[in-house]
């Protein structure tokens, strides 16, 4: 069987005063029967790669590297040789279906064109082949007699697919095959792509639709500014992305399966531009720049070496802008990141706690990766709070290890308590007890800063406190700042607690029922703000809640706890849609869900006790 390989492929477009880097040393392998997806935002070089595979790059493109078909080098082929390959060996479905068909010719004739050109068949014979090809993609051959403008977008797209497949090529490049199509058509085309792959065609799927990529691809390459940032098995892109960019991208998917609120990648899409500046001695020197897209013309100087994603990355360190990462193999995927992909912020291994005979927490593992939201759900007394307190360093486990940023938590607490405190914010359960009743609102919110930066000026302190209160949607009047906790309602107090936890700008926020006392409207705003912070600053969130609906909206991963065990933990999509543990399933059968409202009423009349508000956790677990 054949193989289409791309090795160290770089493409640069020349323009008058600058050059644009479209691809930067990309490696890729297409095998028959496999779907490889290339995902990335606009300008990442996806289409350039597709065109390169067919020798269709414009003259302004400078290409280096090799494209190998069955070990034969395609680079440097002349146009005649390329023509022999196109359609027969490698074919392509171009982006923008309507534009790639000639409006004055009937669809059928255009679909038949490759047959006529390459096989020299008569128009009639070619037409028969075209009808067959159209039928294969589920189109009524009678549609072939129409003109392109008489077909719908989906029909055109399928006609083009038929055209791409008509000569039975070994490899097909599909550039955005489902863009702008409704979900039904998209589904049909998706199924067809999978069938074509199963029939032995090697497919390169170029798309910005991550859901499509995940559904179809055996392997996904995440492209950013011409570089592959991550290569991973398709299904894992949405459930366990390894690169910060993949994680941020995966949050931008508005799929039917996902429940989490949409996130995104911070900052704007950029282009890589090499500017030619006349040097002092007449020689032209080239400087690499990242140029913002149309909306923001902000230009930032790209260091000679360094990670391209660094300006938009939330976990960057100093060396990220100095040293260039390589694509490195780890755990069945390849990641281009100096820090080895998304770093682990906190890892709890086998932590357990018991109070006398009561096992508050059986040995449990929990890993928090930078920038993700993990929700712990379960009923009162299931050990959620115990686990959260351990993660916050406020409760020592009887056994097990806690690692924060690669170092034992005990060591942090002993030697670098201040650093740890600055980077880990905690919102405790029961806001009324979590603040000193002798402190005013100002003193409560300012306390972490006063402890950690005792030399901070009064003005700055005031500003920061106001900012923190603003973040949680609280009044900023001087009068409010002078209030005492007992003068506030529980909702305001809870937000004061959140403001206090966020004021030092922590990278990890551990929140125990942080919005339990808030009105739905305020809760929504506060959670939105937390998710915004996640996008902007890479905030890692560990949230304890008994509200599964809430977890559904914010969680990347959900851990379900029962009687001191984490009975199930995994990507939110999986836990919510395909729960494995019976307890999770019972949680998901909440009687208040609208589709099951009627059984709920029946249960209520039957006198079931679930209508009671959840009781408070036993004190022992908060100690």
């Amino acid at each position, binding site marked *: 069987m054949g193989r289409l390989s791309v090795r160290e492929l770089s493409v640069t477009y020349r323009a008058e005063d600058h050059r644009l880097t479209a691809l930067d040393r990309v490696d890729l392998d297409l095998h028959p029967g496999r779907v490889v997806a290339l995902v990335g935002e606009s300008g990442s070089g996806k289409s350039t790669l597709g065109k390169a595979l067919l020798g269709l790059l414009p003259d302004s493109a400078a290409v280096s590297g090799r494209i190998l078909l069955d070990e034969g080098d395609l680079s440097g082929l002349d146009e005649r040789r390329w023509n022999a390959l196109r359609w027969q060996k490698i074919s392509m479905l171009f982006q923008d279906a309507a534009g790639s068909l000639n409006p004055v010719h009937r669809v059928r004739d255009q679909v038949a064109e490759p047959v006529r050109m390459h096989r020299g068949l008569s128009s009639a014979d070619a037409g028969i082949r075209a009808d067959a090809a159209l039928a294969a993609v589920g189109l009524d051959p009678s549609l072939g007699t129409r003109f392109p403008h008489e077909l719908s977008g989906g029909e055109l797209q399928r006609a083009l697919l038929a055209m791409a497949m008509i000569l039975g090529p070994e490899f097909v490049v599909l550039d955005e095959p489902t863009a702008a199509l409704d979900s039904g058509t998209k589904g049909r085309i998706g199924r067809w792509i999978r069938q074509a792959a199963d029939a032995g065609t090697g497919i390169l799927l170029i798309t910005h639709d991550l859901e499509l990529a995940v559904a179809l691809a055996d392997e996904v390459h995440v492209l950013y500014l011409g570089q592959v940032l991550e290569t991973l098995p398709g299904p894992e892109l949405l459930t366990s992305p390894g690169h910060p960019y993949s994680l941020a991208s995966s949050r931008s998917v508005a799929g039917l399966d996902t429940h989490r609120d949409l996130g995104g990648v911070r900052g704007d899409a950029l282009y890589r531009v090499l500017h030619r500046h006349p040097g002092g001695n007449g020689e032209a020197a080239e400087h690499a720049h990242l140029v913002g897209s149309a909306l923001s013309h902000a230009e930032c100087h790209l260091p000679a070496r360094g990670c391209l994603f660094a300006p938009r990355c939330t976990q960057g360190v100093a060396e990220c802008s100095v040293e260039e990462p390589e694509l490195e193999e780890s755990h069945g995927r390849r990641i281009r990141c100096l820090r080895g992909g998304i770093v682990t912020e906190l890892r709890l291994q086998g932590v357990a706690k018991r109070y006398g005979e009561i096992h508050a927490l059986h040995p449990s593992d929990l890993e928090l990766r930078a920038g993700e939201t993990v929700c712990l759900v379960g009923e009162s007394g299931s050990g959620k709070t115990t686990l959260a307190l351990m993660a916050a360093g406020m409760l020592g486990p009887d056994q097990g290890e806690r690692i924060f940023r690669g170092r034992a938590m005990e060591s942090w607490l002993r030697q670098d308590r201040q650093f740890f405190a600055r980077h880990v914010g*905690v919102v405790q359960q029961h806001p009324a007890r979590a603040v000193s009743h002798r402190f005013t609102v100002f003193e409560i919110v300012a306390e972490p800063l006063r402890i950690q930066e005792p030399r901070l000026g009064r003005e700055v302190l005031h500003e920061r406190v106001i900012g923190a209160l603003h973040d949680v949607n609280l009044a900023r009047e001087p009068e409010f700042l002078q209030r005492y906790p007992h003068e506030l309602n529980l909702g305001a107090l809870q937000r004061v607690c959140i403001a206090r936890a966020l004021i030092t700008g922590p990278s990890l926020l551990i929140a125990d029922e942080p919005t339990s006392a808030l009105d739905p409207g305020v809760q929504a705003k506060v959670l939105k703000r937390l998710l915004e912070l996640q996008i902007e600053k890479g905030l890692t969130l560990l949230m304890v809640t008994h509200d599964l609906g809430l977890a559904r909206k914010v969680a990347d991963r959900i851990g379900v706890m029962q009687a001191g065990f984490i009975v199930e933990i995994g990507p939110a999509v999986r836990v919510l849609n395909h729960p494995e543990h019976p307890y999770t399933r019972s949680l998901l059968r909440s009687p208040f869900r609208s589709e099951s409202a009627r059984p709920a009423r029946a249960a209520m009349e039957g006198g079931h006790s679930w209508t009671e508000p959840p009781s408070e956790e036993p004190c022992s677990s908060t100690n």
Partner: protein
Amino acid sequence: MDARFDPHAGLWRRLLADPWFVIGASLAAVLALLILLSPWLSLHDPHDMSHVPFAPPSGSHWLGVNDGGMDMFAELLAGLRNTLAFGLITGTAGLALGILVGLTSAWFRGWADQILMRLADLLLAIPAVMILILLAAFYRPSPWVLALVLALLAWPTSARLIRSQALGLRNQPHIAAARQMGGSNAYVIGRHMMPELFPLYLIAFAAKVRMAVFMEASLSFLGLFDPTRKSLGRTISDALPFYYLDIWWYWMLPPILLLTLLIMAFTFLAVSLERFFDPRLRAAWAG
């Protein structure tokens, strides 16, 4: 600060409705006024021996003159002042030690707690009065030194009271939060633990002052202080040899009465405050 923002706003109202508190506080206030106004109240220097001995009360000598020719009223006020000063010094120093030890013990627990609490047990087993008598008899230290020595011997009761409450406080979420924010031990103890237990200090202080006042009166009665130092106990003991004369009502009774009132004032205050702040009754106060 606006009274509206005072978390203890309702407390004063309720304290003022408690007869124990009102009586104790009024007594203490009257006695304090007597001391503060003594330069204007008494017409004579308490050490002036130029008056006619055994003179009965008159317009010039409201409570007569003693055997040494000294004005009794002036002597009484000076004695009250010295006795109370002794009590306050012991009370303050004892309370300070009690807070320090109690909070330290409760916060750090472990070996520090063990050592401090065993030391407290040891001191509780030693009769303070014996130590003071021996010290006073052999070394004749100044009353201030004795007051401090008494404080050194008397802190364990308040330390234990404070420690037992602080142990519970230690696990309060807001204390845990302050610790989590990176607050040092000193910060958490000083900023969070100490103010939280304020009512306990009042109880401990009143009890300590009462005990020290009684102790001072006893020691001076036994003649263990400098004989020229005025003290209520000393005045009583001076009057005793002349019990057969008709002087008891203006010489003997007033110091006994004053001492009783002084001790009563602090007893009543302690009882009242304890009722309000005793942890077992704390819920009523917090609500």
